[in-house]
């Protein structure tokens, strides 16, 4: 109705000048992160997508601390040990590293496509990233298999324990990353709380971090032999 539209227009203008947050909102504003659609959450400022970037940043700090605890344990035990039996790193680990680095590259290509509003291009590269991520995980399992065939199990020595716990912890985190990649690939973002670009951005931070972490862990295991 005309009257309502005018009122809404005026209120929107007032909103604009006030910079948001000051007065009564017209109903129908953005929801605030609660999908309970009984109308309970209608009159608020829209959910800031910034919260997701902040969250992933802080979460990555936590993950870093987790791996740093294990790393410090590794360094201490390695230095103290007089009978260190180094694990011969299977060759496939280097291939896996290349795969993971490639997946980071395709991830960035995908995001660039997205910012140019090229959705098919985005989907193509994002799918490639997901596939490469899954390939990496399979490659890790192959590496484990190769070690088991050689008779190196998780409890064989301290060195092998560290190898397995580092790769397992990293692999588990990466699995979560793959799940996030799949989510971004498959979700219909018209009905989602977050936009595709926000989700892609947050996932990319996580993925690149996991990539860098893997390079660090591999270097640690290699130098620590």
């Amino acid at each position, binding site marked *: 109705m005309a009257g309502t539209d005018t009122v809404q227009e005026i209120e929107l203008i007032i909103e604009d000048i006030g910079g948001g947050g000051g007065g*009564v909102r017209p109903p129908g504003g953005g929801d*605030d992160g609660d999908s309970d659609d009984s109308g309970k959450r209608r009159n608020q400022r829209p959910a800031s997508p910034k919260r997701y970037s902040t969250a992933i940043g802080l979460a990555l*700090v936590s993950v870093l*601390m987790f*791996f740093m*605890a294990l790393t*410090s*344990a590794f360094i201490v035990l390695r230095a103290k040990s007089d009978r260190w039996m180094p694990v011969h790193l299977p060759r496939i680990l280097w291939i896996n590293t290349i795969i993971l680095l490639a997946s980071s590259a395709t991830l960035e290509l995908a995001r660039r496509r997205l910012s140019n509003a090229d959705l098919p291009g985005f989907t193509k590269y994002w799918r490639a990233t997901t596939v490469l991520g899954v390939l990496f995980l399979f490659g890790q399992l192959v590496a484990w298999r190769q070690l088991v065939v050689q008779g190196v199990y998780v409890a064989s020595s301290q060195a092998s*324990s560290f190898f397995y716990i580092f790769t397992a912890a990293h692999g588990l985190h990466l699995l979560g990353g793959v799940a996030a990649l799949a989510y971004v690939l498959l979700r219909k973002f018209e009905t989602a709380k977050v936009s595709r670009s926000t989700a892609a951005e947050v996932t990319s931070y996580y993925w690149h971090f996991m990539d860098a972490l893997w390079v660090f862990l591999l270097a640690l295991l290699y130098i620590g032999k």
Partner: protein
Amino acid sequence: MYSVRGRGHGSAPGAYAGPKRGKFTHDHESNSAEVSKTGFLARYLFSKDHKVVGLQYLWLALFSVFLAMGMSLLMRIHLVWPSAQIPFLANLSGTPERYAALMMLHGSLMVFLVLTAAPQAGFGNYFLPLQIGAREMAFPILNIIAFWFTTTSLVGMAAAFFSSAEKGLNLWIASVTLFCLASLLNAINFSVTTIDLRAKGMTLPRLPVTVWAWFINAILGMLIFSILLAACAALLSDRLLGTGFFPELGYWAGQPAAVRQLALPILWQRLFWFFAQAEVYVAMLPCFGLITHLVSTFARRPVWRERLVVLALCAVGVFGFCVWGQHMFASGMNPYSPLVFSVLASSLGLPASILLISWLGTLWDARFALNTSMLFAIGFISLFLSGGLSGIFLARQDLAAAATSDDFITGHFHLVMGVAATFAILAALFFWFPKMFGRRLNESLGKAHFWLTFAGVYCVFMPMHWLGLIAHSRPAAGGALAAIPTAGSSIRTFITVATLVTVAAQLLFLFNFLWSVFFARETNEANPWRATTLEWSVSSPPPDDDFGAADPVVYRGAYEFSLPGAAEDFLPQHVSPEEASRAR
């Protein structure tokens, strides 16, 4: 009165003028008969409402504190009357393993489920969004997950107690791992909420000190719980998969008892204390924030040197991160490191002193109401001072082992962490009870409970310092001083009797709390304490979406009390300058 006039945030239930939004017109549970289309599970057990989650944590903490107090009672009774036969509980403290299990469970329940859950997850979840003007936590679903992880870890720990030693320990470690995950989720939620969801005008300098404390605590928690998670994962891997991350643990476990006593599992100690020392500050930081807030509100004074207080809180967080070695003086680590850790640990006295001086400075020349909440707050200051002073001795690496025994340490940390923190929780409870439930706790019962508990805890924990000191005394036999070690047993009996009385006195509180929650008269006062922060600008209990129709706007800091020339002795944060000048 600002809290009654203005935007219609009245003191009658649901009296604020917001547009009817169909289903959810009012706020609290008692009014929902005709409107709720969500069931019991969704409203009470799996609610995304941060207020419900906060209350859930408080109920969890209430249950845990009484369970853990019961265990401490069993321990004390066994210490002094080992042959006493208690019906149904005879086999719970009879053997050394059972006693050790009691002690471990008492400690884990208190530190994790009470001291970490109640002030941070409980009050924080309820009041952080309210105090910063947000309507919810940043990630409500993470909140639900974190709460149920915490509950599962409590069940696991309790179940561990009744299992065999081997299985029980595995279950306990797994429960602690789950608790770490829950705490990490909570920490992320709190941090992101404080960073991103503040209302318009709520700049960082205007944050209430309680919010600062929760925020700094969340950052600290994010750093340290990952460490414990890693350590527990490695320990579980050792126990279940046969790995050798902590070879000394496995090696020493197989040695005879006399050798075991000298065991020094260094790596585990490093990792554990890196977490655990910072964890005690995780327990204390929210309490510091709460007491600062309460003292200011009840004394009707701004926080004395508010920015310095916030800096001191940050310093506690940073320093707490750096002093893990103070628990490892005798562990055989590098001989120069005890000096470093000693210096760092002693320097924690600086932020602690700043806080104490601020509290005393706020109270200086003030006329404050001595209601139960304020009594507990002042009790906190007393206990923190008493307990903290003994910490100065413990920070000295040359004194600690040579001059004191475990009892000294037990007295110290119980006074600061156990009792002072509990007093802060109780002070906060008496303060925020009217907001959470729209009713008041009984003041007479509250005061009686306070005095009994205050006297009781001093009687329980102060003599422990003495016991700790005389344990190393070596008087010549036959001299007058020879009577000192034998006095130990009568002191122990005294402590046990005092424990019995103090634990019994807690029933006063339990009755007060439970009765008031369900049967006290609903007064629904929006701002009974005439406080300034945002949670007092809404009805009691707050509406489902916290602030009704309009998002709050903040115009000033949180401690504008007793401004010269003002009509009232307080100026709430949300009152605009026009309204304030109109009221003058």
